[in-house]
C-alpha cells in the first residue's frame, strides 16, 4: 500500500497530538498550522525523533511503528530538513553532503551530483558552514537530505529562519524539487504563501488535531473548515499558459472553467503554472460591468455563503465552471445584492498572483 498511514496519540502536560492520517504517495503535502498546533511534533514522530507512546506508522507499505514494533530513526529511509540548517560545523559542505550518503547502502554518486546541481551549490563544496550565508546553508542541508536517495522527504519549516530575501532565493529551488522529485514530501509550514506555492495536498492542524486533509485546491476552498488563513484566505488554481500578449506584457492562463490575464512571467505557451487569488481581491457584481480597470471579469455561480471572522464580513464561495473561487464581502453588500446559492453573478478579480 503506497502513501503514509500515520496514527499518533500523545498526551503530554499542556500538549496533545491526536491524528489519524492517510497521506498521498506523491507530491508535496503541507502540514499547516500555527505554532503549537502539533505540526512539527507530527513530523518528528514520522521521522522517529519523537516517540509517540501510542501510534502506528506505515510508509510505502513498510511498518515503522506500532505497539510492538519500532524502527529507530537511523534505519528509516527518509531525508529530513531542519528549520535551522544544522550543518555539521566540523565538516566542509562536501563532507556534510557525503556524511549521510556514505551510510546508505547502494547510494549512488549520481544522486549526490544531481542534488548539488538541483540546489546550485557546486561552487560551495570546499567551504566550511561558517562561511556560508543562511540561504546557502539551507540549500546545502536540503541537498544533504536528497543525497541519501530517501523514500520520503520531511521538511520542517525550512524557510522560517530566513529573511524575506533569502526566502526568495530558496523558493525557486523548492519549486524545482516539487516538479522533479517523485517521492512524497511532507512540508511543515505556517506561511500561507509557501503552502500556496508548493503544496499539492494540505493537512490543517490546530491544537494537535487535523481539521482538514485533502487536495490543496479543494481544501482551501472549503468554507466549513476553520483554517485560519485570515487575511490570506485564498484559492489556488492550476492552469496552463494559453496566450501571451507581448505588447502589454500579459499572459492568459487557462484553467478548467475559464481563463485569467496575469503579468507575463516569461513562461512558454503550454507551461503549467499555479495562480493564487486572495478572497479580498474578488468582488461581485450582478451584471457585467463595462467601464472598469479590472482585466479579469468572469461569470460565476454562487455556491455557498458563510460567516467570516469579523461580524461585518462574510465569505462567498463561487464556481467558475469546475474551479472554486472565494470572495470576501461585507454582510451588507451580500444583503443588498440578495446573494443566494445558485445565483449567476460576475466576479471581478483585482489581483492574480502567479505563484509557481
Amino acid at each position, binding site marked *: 500500500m503506497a502513501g503514509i498511514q500515520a496514527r499518533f496519540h500523545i498526551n503530554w502536560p499542556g500538549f496533545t497530538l491526536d491524528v489519524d492520517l492517510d497521506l498521498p504517495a506523491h507530491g508535496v503535502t503541507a502540514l499547516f498550522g500555527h505554532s503549537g498546533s502539533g505540526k512539527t511534533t507530527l513530523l518528528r514522530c514520522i521521522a522517529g*525523533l519523537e516517540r509517540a507512546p501510542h501510534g502506528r506508522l506505515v510508509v510505502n507499505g513498510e511498518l515503522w511503528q506500532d505497539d510492538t514494533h519500532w524502527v*529507530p530513526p*537511523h534505519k528509516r529511509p527518509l531525508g529530513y530538513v531542519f528549520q*535551522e540548517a544544522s550543518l555539521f560545523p566540523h565538516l566542509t559542505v562536501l563532507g556534510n553532503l557525503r*556524511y549521510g550518503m556514505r*551510510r*546508505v547502502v547502494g547510494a549512488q554518486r549520481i544522486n549526490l551530483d544531481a542534488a548539488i546541481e538541483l540546489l546550485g551549490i557546486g561552487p560551495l563544496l570546499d567551504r566550511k558552514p561558517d562561511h556560508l550565508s543562511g540561504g546557502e546553508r539551507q540549500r546545502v542541508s536540503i541537498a*544533504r537530505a536528497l543525497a*541519501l536517495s530517501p523514500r520520503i522527504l520531511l521538511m520542517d519549516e525550512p524557510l522560517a529562519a530566513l529573511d524575506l530575501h533569502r526566502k526568495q532565493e530558496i523558493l525557486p529551488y523548492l519549486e524545482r524539487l516539487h516538479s522533479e522529485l517523485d517521492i512524497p514530501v511532507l512540508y511543515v509550514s505556517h506561511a500561507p504563501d509557501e503552502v500556496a506555492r508548493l503544496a499539492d495536498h494540505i493537512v490543517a492542524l490546530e491544537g494537535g488535531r487535523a481539521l482538514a486533509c485533502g487536495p490543496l485546491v479543494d481544501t482551501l476552498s472549503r468554507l466549513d473548515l476553520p483554517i485560519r488563513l485570515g487575511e490570506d484566505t485564498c484559492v489556488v488554481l492550476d492552469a496552463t499558459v494559453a496566450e501571451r500578449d507581448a505588447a502589454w506584457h500579459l499572459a492568459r492562463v487557462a484553467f478548467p472553467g475559464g481563463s485569467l490575464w496575469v503579468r507575463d512571467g516569461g513562461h512558454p505557451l503550454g507551461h503549467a503554472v499555479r495562480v493564487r487569488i486572495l478572497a479580498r481581491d474578488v468582488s461581485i457584481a450582478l451584471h457585467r460591468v463595462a467601464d472598469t480597470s479590472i482585466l479579469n471579469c468572469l461569470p460565476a455561480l454562487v455556491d455557498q455563503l458563510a460567516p467570516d471572522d469579523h461580524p461585518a464580513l462574510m465569505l462567498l464561495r463561487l464556481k467558475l465552471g469546475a474551479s472554486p473561487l472565494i470572495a470576501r464581502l461585507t454582510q451588507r453588500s451580500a444583503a443588498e445584492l440578495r446573494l443566494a446559492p445558485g445565483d449567476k453573478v460576475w466576479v471581478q478579480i483585482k489581483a492574480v498572483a502567479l505563484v509557481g
Partner: protein
Amino acid sequence: MLLTPEDLQALWLTVRLASTVTVILLLLGTPLAWWLARSKAWWKGPVGAVVALPLVLPPSVLGFYLLLTMGPNGAVGQLMQALGIGMLPFTFWGLVVASVVYSMPFMVQPLQTAFEAIGERPLEVAATLRASPLDAFFTVAVPLARSGFLTAGILTFAHTVGEFGVVLMIGGNIPGVSRVASVQIYDHVEAMEYNDAHRLAAVMLVFSFLVLLALYARRPKIGKGA
C-alpha cells in the same frame, strides 16, 4: 647534570603515572561524562556529586579510604588477592588506581560541559543521516567536543603530576615505584638538600606554568565553539 639520577627517575615516574592515568580516565570518563550530560535519571545527581568529591576532600582523607579499601582487609584488596593479583598499595598500579579516582572530576567535568554544549540537534541530524547512536558519537559528538577533550586531557595530566597527599598514603616513598616528583622534593627538603629541592621545584613550576598557558591561550577559541 643539574638533576640527580634520583630526580630524573622521579620525574620519569611522574610522567608515566600521569600518562597512564590520563589514558585510563579518557576511557572511563568519556562514557561517564556522556551519560551525565544526557541522562534524565534521578541518580544522575548523586553520581555527579560522587565524581566531584575529590575536588573538596583533603587528599589524605581520600588516600586513607583508598588505603583501607585496597588493603588486605578491604573489599578491593580481598578481591585482588582472590584473583591472585596481589596487593595494590605501595605499587605503581596502586598509585594509578588512586590517581584515577583523585583526578576523575578533572576529566569528567570539562567533558560533561562540552557534551552538554553540543545539544540534541546535531545528534538528531546524524540519526536522520543514517548514523547509529554509536556512529554519531564518534563522528559528530567527539569532533564537536574536541576542545573539551583537550582541556580535560591537559587538566587531568597536570593534576595527576601535582598530587602529593594521595601518593603518600597509597604509594609511600619507594624509589622507581612510587616516589614521584612531588615526593622527591619533599625528601630533598627533609634532608636539608635545598639546592636539589630548588632545581626540581623549578622544573615543576615551569611545567605547571606551561600547561596552564597552553590551556588559557586556547580559551578564546573555545568560546567560538570551534
